[in-house]
C-alpha cells in the first residue's frame, strides 16, 4: 500500500513544473560545483606531482655540495598530497599550506608558511558540492515539502481521498518518501559520479552524512506541515527556519564565539615571542659579530673557521628556538582550549554540524592539515639528526650521503580514525531527524480536516 501511495505521489510530483525546475536547478548546481572541484583537484594534483618530481631530481644531483647549503639553504619540501575527496569541498585548503620547507636548523622548524589565495576568495567561500548540500539542499527540501497536505485539505480533496480505505499516516508517509527520494537521489548520486575511484569508504560516509542532514530538514518540514496552517504560512515559517538554522544561526554563533571565546591574540603572542628571544638574539648576534671581527673576510676563514661559525649559529638558533617554542606551545594550548569551547556552540545548528562532518570526510578540515604539520615536524627532527653533525663539521656532502638522507612520505591517518571522528555527529543528526519525523507523524494524528 505504502509503495503504491509513494509511486502515485512520485508521478504527481514529477509532473509538476515547479518541482521539475527544482530538480534541474539542484542537479545543475551539484554537477557544476562538482565539476569545478574536479578541475581544481586536477590542478592541485599536477602541482603536487611537479614538485615531488623536482624533489627527487634535486636529490639525484651528483655534484659536491656543502652540507649547510644542501640541508639548510636548499632544504627539502614536505609535500601534502591533495585530498582525493577534496574536489567535493574546498574546506580549509585555501587557508592552510600544502607544503612545509624542512631544514636542519632549529628556528626554521617553527615557521610554516601560509596558503596564498585572494582574500576575497577566502571571504566569499567556494561554490563546491559541500556548499550546495549545506545551503541549497535544505532550501529545496522545503520548496518541495511546504505544501504536503494544506492545499488538498483546503480544496477538500484530502477528505475525499480519506473516504477510501487508506490511513492519513500512510498517505503522509507516501508523500514523504516520494519527496525524500526526489532530492536524496541527486544529492547522493551526482557527487558520487564525480568522486568515484577516490576513497570509497569516506565517500560512503559522506553520503550517509548527506542523507542524515537531509533527514533533519525533512523532519522539520513534516512538523511544520502537521501544524495545519495554510500553504503560504507553511512556506513563510519554513523559510524562516531555514534562515535561522542555516544562515542567521551560524552567523550569530560565530559572533558569540568571537565575543565570548575570543581566540588568543597572535599579535600579543608575537610581542611575547620578541621579548622572550630578545636576549638570545642580541647575544647571539654579538657572538657572530665577534667571530666575523676575528675573521675579516669570509673568503678565507677555512674549514675550522666555518665549523666555529656553524657551531655559534646552531647554539644561537637553539637558544632562540627553545624560548620561542615555550611561547608557541602556551599559545597553542590556549588556542586549542578556545576552539574546543567554541565547537560546542556548533551543535545548535545542523548546518554547522554537517559542515564539519563533510570537511572531515573530504579531508580538507583542519584535522588533516594538523596531522600533516605533525608528520612534517617529526620528519624535521630526522632531517636535523642526520644533517646537523655534517653541518657542524662544515663537511662537503658525498653522493652517498645525499642518497641516504631521510625522505618524507606523508601517510594518511587511518580511515577508521577519520570515520570514528564523524560517527557521533552523523548519529546525532540521524537521531534528531528520526525524532522530528516521529513527532511530525504524531502531530499529524490531530490534523483537522
Amino acid at each position, binding site marked *: 500500500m505504502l509503495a503504491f501511495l509513494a509511486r502515485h505521489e512520485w508521478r504527481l510530483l514529477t509532473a509538476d513544473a515547479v518541482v521539475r525546475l527544482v530538480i534541474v536547478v539542484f542537479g545543475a548546481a551539484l554537477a557544476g560545483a562538482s565539476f569545478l572541484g574536479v578541475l581544481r583537484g586536477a590542478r592541485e594534483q599536477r602541482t603536487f606531482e611537479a614538485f615531488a618530481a623536482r624533489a627527487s631530481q634535486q636529490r639525484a644531483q651528483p655534484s659536491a655540495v656543502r652540507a649547510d647549503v644542501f640541508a639548510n639553504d636548499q632544504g627539502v619540501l614536505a609535500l601534502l598530497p591533495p585530498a582525493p575527496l577534496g574536489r567535493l569541498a574546498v574546506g580549509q585548503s585555501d587557508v592552510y599550506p600544502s607544503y612545509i620547507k624542512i631544514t636542519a636548523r632549529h628556528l626554521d622548524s617553527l615557521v610554516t608558511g601560509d596558503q596564498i589565495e585572494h582574500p576575497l576568495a577566502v*571571504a566569499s567561500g567556494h561554490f563546491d558540492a559541500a556548499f550546495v548540500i549545506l545551503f541549497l539542499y535544505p532550501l529545496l527540501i522545503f520548496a518541495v515539502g511546504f505544501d504536503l497536505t494544506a492545499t488538498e485539505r483546503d480544496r477538500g480533496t484530502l477528505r475525499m481521498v480519506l473516504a477510501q480505505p487508506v490511513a492519513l499516516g500512510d498517505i503522509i508517509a507516501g508523500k514523504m518518501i516520494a519527496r525524500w527520494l526526489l532530492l536524496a537521489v541527486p544529492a547522493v548520486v551526482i557527487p558520487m559520479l564525480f568522486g568515484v575511484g577516490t576513497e570509497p569508504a569516506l565517500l560512503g560516509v559522506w553520503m550517509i552524512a548527506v542523507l542524515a542532514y537531509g533527514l533533519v530538514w525533512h523532519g522539520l518540514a513534516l512538523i511544520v506541515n502537521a501544524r495545519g496552517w495554510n500553504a503560504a504560512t507553511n512556506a513563510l515559517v519554513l523559510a524562516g527556519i531555514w534562515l535561522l538554522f542555516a544562515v542567521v544561526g551560524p552567523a550569530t554563533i560565530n*559572533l558569540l564565539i568571537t*565575543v565570548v571565546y575570543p581566540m588568543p591574540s597572535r599579535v600579543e603572542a608575537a610581542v611575547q615571542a620578541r621579548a622572550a628571544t630578545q636576549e638570545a638574539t642580541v647575544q647571539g*648576534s654579538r657572538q657572530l659579530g665577534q667571530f*666575523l*671581527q676575528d675573521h675579516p673576510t669570509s673568503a678565507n676563514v677555512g674549514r675550522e673557521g666555518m665549523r666555529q661559525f656553524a657551531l655559534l649559529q646552531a647554539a644561537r638558533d637553539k637558544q632562540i628556538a627553545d624560548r620561542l617554542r615555550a611561547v608557541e606551545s602556551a599559545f597553542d594550548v590556549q*588556542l586549542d582550549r578556545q576552539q574546543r569551547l567554541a565547537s560546542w556552540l556548533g551543535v545548535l545548528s545542523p548546518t554547522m554540524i554537517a559542515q564539519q562532518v563533510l570537511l572531515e570526510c573530504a579531508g580538507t578540515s583542519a584535522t588533516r592539515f594538523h596531522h600533516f604539520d605533525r608528520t612534517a615536524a617529526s620528519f624535521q627532527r630526522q632531517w636535523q639528526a642526520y644533517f646537523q653533525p655534517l653541518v657542524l663539521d662544515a663537511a662537503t656532502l658525498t653522493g652517498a650521503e645525499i642518497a641516504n638522507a631521510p625522505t618524507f612520505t606523508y601517510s594518511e591517518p587511518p580511515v577508521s580514525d577519520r570515520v570514528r571522528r564523524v560517527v557521533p555527529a552523523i548519529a546525532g543528526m540521524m537521531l534528531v531527524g528520526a525524532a522530528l519525523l516521529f513527532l511530525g507523524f504524531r502531530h499529524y494524528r490531530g490534523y483537522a480536516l
Partner: protein
Amino acid sequence: MIGGGRSAALTIAVKDATETWRDGRFRWAAALLFVLLVAAVAGGVQYQHQIARQHADAQQAERDAWLGKGDMNPHAAAHYGAFVFKPVQPLSAIDPGLDPFLGVFVFLEAHKQQLARHRPIEDAAPTRRLGLLTPATAALVLIPLLVVSLTFSSFAGERDHGTLRPLLALGVSRGSLLAGKAIGALLPLFVVLIPAAIIGALFIYLNRPADPEAAIGRRALVLLAVYVAHAMVWTGLGLAVSARARSQSTSLVVLLALWFANAFVMPPVAMAIAKVVTPSPSAIEFAAAIDDEKATWPDWDRRVERVMERFLEGEFESTMAPANVEVVALIESEAEETALFDRHFAGLFDRYAAQARTYERAAIVSPTLAARTLSMTLAGTDDLHDRRFAAAAANYRSTMLATLNNELAKSGRLNSFDYVRGRDLWEQVPPFDYDVPGAAWALSERWVSVMVLTTWLAAVSVAAAWSVLSMRLE
C-alpha cells in the same frame, strides 16, 4: 477620501504600513532583525575595540624593543628587523570585510620580504567559514529579505484578492499607487532601521579613535547611503516583480530565488569566474619562482670577488676603503633582493587586482555584490586598503634598511662587521606611521561599483514604474 494624487498615495501607504504593522509575523521578524542589528553592532564594536588596543599596544612594545635592543652592528639590526602591525579601522566594527582573511602584521627584515602573517581565519574554528553576523551582513543580506517579505504581495496580493481593479476604479492613478505601495513598504522598515542606525552611530561615536585625523564621519555617512540605496534597489525589484508576477506565490518564489542568488551564490561564483579568467599561483609555486631565480645568482664569495675586481678597475671613488667591498656587495645584493621580491609580489598583486576587477564587474548582474564591495571599501577593510598598507610597510622597510646600510657604508672602518652602533642610530629610524586615505579616494577607486549600484537603482525604478503602468489587473 481618495482624491488627488498625493493624498491617494499617502492613504495607500498608511493603509499598507498599518496592515503590515498589525501583522504579528512582521512584528516578530522586525523585532528579531532589530535585536540582531544591535547585537551585531555591539559585538563588532567590542571586538574592534579589543583588536585596535592590542595592535596599538603591540606597536608601542615593538618600538620600545627596537630602541632598547642595545648596541650592535647596523646589519645585525637589519636582521633583528621590525614588526609592523596593521592599524585597525574604526568602521571595521560595521564591516570587518577582508580583515579576518588578511595577515595582521608584517615582519620587516634584511634580505627577505614577506606577506603579512597570521590571518585570524587560521585560528578560527572551521565553522567560522559559514559567515559572521556583522552589521554589514544584516544590512546586505537580512534587510533585503525583509524588503522582499514586505513587497512581494504589494500588487500580486491585491490582484489575487481581486481588489486591484476596484482600487483603480476609484480614480487612483497608477503612479500614485506605485508611490503609495513603495512608501507603505518602506515605512515599517524604517521603524526598525532608524532606531538601529541611531544606536549603531552612538556605539561608533563612543568608540571613535583618539586620532582626530581619522575622518570616519564622511565614510560612515556614505556607507549609510550605500545601505539605503541597496534597500531601495530591493524595494524597486520587489514592486516590479510583484506587479508582473502571475500570483503572489510566484512573486515570492521569484524574489526569494533572486535573493538567494545575490546573497549566497554570486560571491563564490564571481570569484570562481575571476580565477578562471586570471589564474593565480599557489603558495608553493610562488615561493618556488622566487627561489629558482635566486638560485641563478652568484654566491656570496663570488659576489665579493666581483666587487673587488671592479674596485681594482677603479670603478669606485677613492673614499671607499678596500675592506668595504663586503659592504658594497651587501648593499648591492640587498637592492637586488628587494627588486626581486618587489617584482614577484607586484606580479602576484597584479593578478589579484585583475581578479578583483572581474569580481567587481560581475556585480553588473548583482546589486548586492556591488553594495558589498562598496561597503568593504568604505569601512577601509577591502583589498585596496590592504595594498595601501602593504605598500606603506614596504616603503618603511626600505627606509629602515637604507638608514642602516648607509651608516655601515659611511663608517669607513677597515672591517665594517665589527662596527657597533647604539640607540642614537636606532632613533634615526622613525616609528611606523600609516594614514588611511579619505572617502573620496576610496570611492574613486571603486567607480565601477558606484556606477553599477546607481545604474541598478535607476533601472529598477524605471522597471517598477513600467511594470505598474503595464500590469494586468486580473
